């Protein structure tokens, strides 16, 4: 919240989701593909099977063109996007886990070198050396997953790290092992989803044999992914489980959208199993481009659903029990309540200062200045997740009853007390919170009232507004009179 404001019409979360999901699909294929391709070449050498060799060779071209280009670029993309939308969180993670990432990087160097050498040396080196490089590629790629898995799972279930702040306590956290099994299974599933396509180019008489070979890998991937997933669910702390699981017949999940995501991913997994078993094992002749596309889409949907669930189950935190999704630290709630959120948010504060609002004397604020301050508070606390009218748009959520807006913010402010009362070093129980997926409102009473006035100023029905689009774009009143929001936008030119 104390960084410059970078607005995106689709919302930072959507952008991160797009980049991250496309990257993880490719990155997991890079791992599983390495395993299946190296195994395929090994079988080809032992059986002197030309078709299997061709499958491995074509697969290695896909490995070269997708993971080592697209995967590498989107991997860097995750760093870029995380730095843009959650700089505080990525900084905190790097301060804790830079050596973990550095270790992963060493395996990444091996992985990239091996991928390039493996593809470039088909037909040029002895079979033994070539297949050895294939296995080196897989081992390096899988170990990079082994390492990164520790950092990803830490964000959701920090485990003993909350008390000790020790690297390995956070790394080997409660969901580490189930997640590793799950992700290894997903990596193999991704490999089968991608490798069906080069397998379609095989000669017709050899195709059923090759499809069955890939089908066996699919079964392995499914078994690992399904068992890993349910183990992962079981390993989650109760406080996280209740967000997306009905804990008893009369106790629904706290977050219905997450419960729906869980159902979606399980159906997608079932679809992957059904389509995969049919076209790869039972009726290999049914394997055609359309059915292969369906298999791939089902597998991607399962994986994407899981990633969405994992991210959603972390709400309202970026690092569980440590940092909220807007960059606020649990440990600084009291201080921010006392000094005001704008004391911590210099970039957001600019719009208030440009409206010449004296932040130390709220009793002297004019109506326009109060709205300007409210806009600044919105930028500091809310804009990291909410746009005005786009993704998670705030405008559709607002009624025109100021008492209702005020009451909601009052409740969210009270939640700050609940977080402060939390036992340090232990997981927060979100079950009894009114808004368990939202960070608490923090700041002074004057800031809260200013936010209420700002929200009211932008809540006019869309039909009565001027053009509405960008995050700092203003809403014009029915008579063409500028609202406070518009005045803020014009006065501040706020980024």
């Amino acid at each position, binding site marked *: 919240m104390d960084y*410059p404001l970078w607005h995106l019409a689709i919302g930072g979360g959507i952008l991160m989701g797009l980049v991250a999901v496309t990257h993880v699909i490719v990155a997991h294929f890079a791992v599983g593909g390495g395993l299946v391709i190296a195994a395929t070449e090994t079988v080809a050498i032992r059986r002197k099977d030309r078709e299997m060799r061709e499958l491995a060779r074509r697969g290695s071209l896909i490995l070269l063109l997708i993971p080592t280009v697209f995967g590498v*670029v989107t991997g860097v*993309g995750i*760093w870029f996007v995380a730095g843009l939308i959650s700089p505080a969180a990525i900084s*905190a993670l790097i301060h804790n886990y830079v*050596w973990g990432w550095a270790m992963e990087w060493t395996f990444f160097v091996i992985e990239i070198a091996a991928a390039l*050498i493996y593809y470039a040396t088909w037909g040029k080196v002895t079979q033994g050396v070539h297949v*050895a490089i294939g296995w080196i590629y897989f081992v390096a790629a899988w170990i990079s997953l082994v390492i990164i898995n520790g950092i990803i799972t830490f964000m959701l279930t920090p485990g003993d790290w909350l008390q000790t702040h020790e690297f390995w306590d956070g790394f080997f956290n409660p969901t580490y092992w189930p997640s590793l099994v799950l992700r290894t299974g997903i990596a193999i599933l991704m490999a089968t989803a991608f490798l069906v396509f080069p397998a379609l180019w095989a000669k017709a008489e050899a195709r059923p044999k090759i499809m069955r070979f890939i089908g066996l890998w699919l079964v392995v991937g499914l078994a690992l992914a399904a068992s890993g997933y349910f183990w992962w669910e079981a390993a989650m702390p109760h406080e996280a489980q209740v967000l997306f699981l009905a804990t008893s017949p009369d106790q629904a999940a706290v977050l219905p959208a997450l419960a729906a995501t869980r159902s979606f991913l399980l159906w997608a997994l079932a679809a992957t199993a059904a389509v995969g078993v049919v076209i790869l094992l039972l009726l290999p002749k049914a394997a055609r481009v359309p059915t292969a596309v369906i298999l791939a889409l089902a597998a991607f949907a399962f994986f994407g659903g899981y990633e969405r669930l994992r991210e959603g189950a972390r709400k309202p935190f970026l690092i569980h029990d440590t940092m909220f999704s807007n960059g606020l630290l649990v440990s600084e709630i009291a201080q921010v309540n006392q000094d005001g959120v704008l004391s911590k948010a210099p970039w957001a504060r600019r719009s208030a200062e440009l409206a010449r609002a004296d932040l130390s004397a709220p009793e002297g604020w004019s109506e326009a200045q109060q709205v300007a301050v409210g806009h600044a508070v919105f930028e500091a606390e809310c804009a990291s997740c909410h746009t005005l009218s786009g993704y998670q748009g705030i405008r559709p959520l607002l009624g025109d009853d100021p008492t209702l807006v005020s009451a909601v913010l009052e409740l969210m402010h009270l939640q700050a007390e609940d977080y402060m009362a939390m036992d340090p070093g232990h997981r927060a129980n979100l079950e009894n919170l009114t808004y368990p997926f939202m960070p608490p409102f923090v700041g002074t009473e004057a800031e809260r009232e200013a936010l209420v006035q700002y929200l009211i100023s932008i809540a006019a029905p869309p039909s009565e507004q001027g053009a509405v689009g960008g995050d700092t774009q203003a809403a014009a009143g029915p008579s063409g009179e500028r609202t406070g929001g518009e005045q803020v936008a014009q006065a501040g030119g706020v980024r």
Partner: protein
Amino acid sequence: MNGFDLLPSLDPTPIPGPAWLFHGLLVLTFFLHLLFMNLTLGGTLMAAVAQLTARGRADDYRTTLAARMSGINSYGIAFTITTGIAPLLFVQVLYQQTFYPATMLIGSVWLGLLAVLGFGYYAAYLYKFRGAPTKGAGGTVWIVVAAVLFFVIAMIQVAVNLIHAQPDTWLAIADHPWSVLGDRTYTVRLLHFVLGAVGLSAALTAWWAVRRARTADLGEAEREREEDIARYAWRWALAAIFLEVFDGFLFLVMVPVNAALMQNLWAAIPLTVAILLALGLLMMLAQVRNPVEKPGIATGVLATIVLLLAVMSITRHQVRLLYLEPVTSRIDQVAAPQWGNFALFAVLLVVALATVGWMVRAVLTHPATGDDAA
């Protein structure tokens, strides 16, 4: 309010090692990144010009040169990105307060770098698979597109680094992001990188051609072609280094921290070494017309450029330290070293380099054809 008032607060999480260690790793890994980045940028620029001037003639030595550079770069681009990850990590450890704001202030452009990189990478592959290397000629458009896109990436990187080093410009950048292009050192800084990149790529190309030209079993026509490539690349290297020396002095005059740079002994030493190396390089390049006749000098030029890049990596970092001195002097970054993890990283790095070395050696020592081949 000025830019320093807009600094985000220091991340309260201690950094997992002493700051000097991260400074050292940042410089070291950036140097590695610089080597590959220079080949990607300079090599692609040179290949594009060579391909254009050869006008699609398959028998022109410049077409061969362009194809050769694209062959190197299909590996070079992958390693440019891979080696870029480590300095990206370490810069975030040390400069959380200035690096993130710099990227956010031109967020869309920074993000756009990814798309530019992706398209540039695929354009380079399209040239390799559909252009000169396999077709004898053609594919010019793809190598030109790749060169332009890689140049755009250099422009973005220079912009981000300038913003990152100058918090006092942030307010102006926030209101007018493109104003960074008007920074007094922007153009000379960009040229410094681009000319250095071309210089290294040209020196490597010349060295390679010299080695090939002196291979005993090469036919006369092939030998002449290699000699043409070596001379052509040598002229590129000479021109690039000549302009680089001129641009370097201009940069030194224009950079706001030049006085501090020259007065600080630890900064002045590498700067002086860099200037001497650059002048020595220029003399070596200028005294030879046909590098095939002077293979020792061709090797010397390549080694000197690599050494120069190493020294300039240090100087570049020192310039950044001096730029950011007003910020860093009032911040005491707390460290909680994780020595065990650092040691594990160091061991794994050695293992990784050894593994890559083993793979390269195994490939070179186990060639095979026919049924024995993979």
